[in-house]
């Protein structure tokens, strides 16, 4: 660094003022100019966050929201050069600072994350599928999965109920957020645990549905094989209709 200690100190004071609004005594500045920088900085960040979190904004009081945002500017060192990714850092900050507990809204972390997932999946870099065909044998051919998704566990079903109502339904929920090919629409799907197991295997391992069913039966032999197969077949059909499964791989098994 070729800045003198004095110049660096001036920059730190200016940055501190902008982030906290605390009198920083920045040398050689005007009060009006400083006021504008603080205003512009806050507007910019606040606009980004309010656009990202419309539901959370509605659930929280203005005072609660502003306190959280002010805490974020002042205490969080933003890492991303892409301002549209900043809402994720806000979610992390809110979770680490435990605003859910402070505000008496235990669902707040899940709600913020749910809102972030929509942005995350909508903007995530394209993940191109392997060559696939539309028709095939659902049980014995490899299924090509749409890779533009995020599968997450939530404690509060904010994707199924209004945020405050979700308090009455605490449990284990699995939310699939995915982007449809061609029209790029983001959709949400609540998944029961059995389908999550199946989905994770079909997404991450080179296995057919019938091979996965055999594995699931080893883990849980209480469900008759035929019933499980019917259930999975129905799931595959729904996933095909929803464009979560794109078709059948053209790269055959050995």
């Amino acid at each position, binding site marked *: *660094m*070729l*800045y*003198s200690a*004095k*110049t*660096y100190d*001036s*920059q*730190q004071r*200016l*940055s501190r003022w*902008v*982030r906290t609004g605390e009198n920083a005594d*920045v*040398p*050689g*500045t*005007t009060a*009006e*100019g*400083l006021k*504008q*920088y603080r205003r*512009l*900085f806050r507007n*910019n*960040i606040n606009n*980004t966050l309010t656009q990202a979190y419309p539901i959370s904004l509605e659930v929280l009081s203005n005072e609660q929201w502003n306190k959280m945002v002010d805490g974020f500017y002042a205490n*969080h*060192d*933003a*890492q*991303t*050069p*892409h*301002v*549209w*990714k*900043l809402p994720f850092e806000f979610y992390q900050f809110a979770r680490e600072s435990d605003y859910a507990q402070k505000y008496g809204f235990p669902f707040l972390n899940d709600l913020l994350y749910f809102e972030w997932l929509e942005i995350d999946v*909508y*903007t*995530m*870099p*394209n*993940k191109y599928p392997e060559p696939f065909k539309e028709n095939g044998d659902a049980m014995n051919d490899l299924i090509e999965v749409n890779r*533009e998704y995020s599968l997450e566990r939530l404690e509060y079903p904010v994707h199924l109920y209004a945020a405050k109502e979700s308090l009455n339904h605490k449990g284990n929920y699995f939310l699939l957020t995915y*982007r449809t090919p061609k029209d*790029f629409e983001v959709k949400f799907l609540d998944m029961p645990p059995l389908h999550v197991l199946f989905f994770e295997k079909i997404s991450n391992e080179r296995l057919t549905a019938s091979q996965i069913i055999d594995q699931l039966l080893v883990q849980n032999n209480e469900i008759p094989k035929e019933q499980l197969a019917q259930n999975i077949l129905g799931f595959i059909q729904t996933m095909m209709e929803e464009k979560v499964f794109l078709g059948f791989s053209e790269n055959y098994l050995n």
Partner: protein
Amino acid sequence: MNNDINIGLGFRREIADEFLTGTSIKPDFIEVAPENWMDMGGYWHAKFREATEKYPLILHGLSLSIGSPEEPDWAFLKKLKPFLNEFNVEIYSEHLSFAKLDNAHLYDLLPIPFKQDSIKHVVKRIKQVQDFLEMRIAIENVSYYTPVDAEVTEDVFVKQIVEQADCNLLLDVNNVYVNSFNHKYDAEKFIDRMPLDKVRYIHMAGHHKISDELIIDTHGEAIIHPVYELFDYTLSKMDRNVPILLERDFNFPEMEELQKEMKNLRNICIKNQEQDVILS
């Protein structure tokens, strides 16, 4: 882009379809901030691709923070370089300001103290970035609402940095106007003191006068007459064409209004080009 008159417009999501399928606006090129499009997939990736197939692209960065005390963001630059190459970008510009300090992005363009040590520091940073990207970058004179512990004037600060770093200048004429109003100096004299041979690109924009003492550089209004006049004056001092951008970031009017502003800019360029021909 060739050496003819090129008038561009910022490619913004709110008016993206107008660029792609509309008939009202006809820019010669588009400009975007790479930070808003790099790493982006899905719908906006597709729209951006479509736009770059239709128009030449200029990049105007937001986060490089050339005035930061810390090292340049090498991780960002490593992603930026292939992005520049992929879209055959001839001009990449950044602001003469800092937007990151002590490892925290601020997403705002804060003024660098106009001091000799700042000049040395920023020159070194620009050289590092140019060496890495293997191209000259253009540095923009920013609007600022207060000086910070200044030792030299803004024009000396800008000129020395551009000359010592051997970079190009993105001359934002509206910023010159805004700063001359806010800090009470003569805008034409400021232009005279700029290294006009280094100007690679010009920005023009509207602004918002919030009081008798203060103008904010908003890019949300139409260009006002005195800024056109300053633009005309600037071109009269230059001996070649450079791309001209109309900046408009929000509060979008009917597209015909934007096209009219671009036409005004083109007419001023044509007038000055014809005068150059007569003089030569």
